[in-house]
């Protein structure tokens, strides 16, 4: 299986922090977003407090990959998660996408090649998200 991250929504960590503060503070989400964009240090501090049991804070983003894999390999991925969108491009080529919550939960439950590749590709572009893949990556 080969996997290449093609695109993702920007500001993933900032939006995790916005999501956390939206639920518990009276401030409006667009105000929080503007404030936090100007203070990256604050984003790390807020996200560092995240308790991912309430996983919806990890859902405000999307990661999109080009995957080269056999049909059985992709079928196994789809059987393992209801939250991954798939498009078949041609023989052995697929577009797959999901949000961070689906990727993290997949990686924690299934220690397969797909979960490792997904975690590596996400952390490769957003190093601050490594904390959510503890136990999956080294």
């Amino acid at each position, binding site marked *: 299986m080969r996997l290449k991250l*093609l*695109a993702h929504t920007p500001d993933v960590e900032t939006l995790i922090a916005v999501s956390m503060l939206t639920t518990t503070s009276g401030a409006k989400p*667009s105000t929080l977003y503007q404030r936090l964009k100007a203070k990256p240090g604050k984003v790390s501090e807020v996200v560092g407090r995240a308790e991912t049991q309430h996983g919806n804070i990890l859902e405000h983003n*999307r990661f999109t990959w080009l995957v080269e894999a056999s049909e059985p390999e992709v079928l196994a991925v789809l059987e393992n998660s209801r939250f991954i969108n798939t498009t078949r491009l041609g023989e052995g080529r697929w577009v*797959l*996408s999901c949000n961070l919550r689906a990727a993290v939960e997949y990686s924690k439950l299934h220690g397969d090649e797909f979960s490792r590749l997904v975690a590596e590709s996400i952390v490769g572009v957003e190093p601050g998200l490594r904390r959510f893949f503890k136990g999956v990556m080294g």
Partner: protein
Amino acid sequence: MRVRLLSYTPLEPLMEALPGTRPRDLLPHMGYVFAVEGVSRACSHQLVRHRVASFSQQSQRYITVKRLGERVVEPPSMAGRREFLDVVKAVQEAYESLIASGVSKEDARFLLPNATETSLLMTMDGGSLLHFLGLRLCYRAQWEIRALAKEALRELRKAQPTLFREAGPYCLQLGYCPEGRFNCGRMKEAWEEYRAEP
């Protein structure tokens, strides 16, 4: 009400990596994050019925609703009506009194009306978003969620005009009304309202 598109998947890297793919076919793989602010809890109840989406909403368990009278959405049909204003005033007094007497916010909120203002983050993939717009821009949709959908469409057309040029109520997307006997009979009007500028 205010709707802002905070973040979205850029189309260009996908088109570069997948030449020959129709942009519209990539919509299920693209994410859109909106800040939705100053809508009623009645509106947010309708929003969360769109299940292929994610929401982070201001929690009435954590946030005290201060000055309820200034934090309600008043339907135009009830503008200035005493029945509405009197109930909101009475609820505000009772809510504040309960909080002051030590009742928890999560219990006191049982009094709060559907008109109470709320703000939230809403994220959908592009495919679900087209479905949302198809349903909620329809003239049969409730006025507040239709206004919200209209703001969302305006933001989307500003950010990705090519992708959302043809987005609109289902009568515009499909070229016919799928509402059957509930057809509003105003398809031409809807097309004129929602068709993108050339």
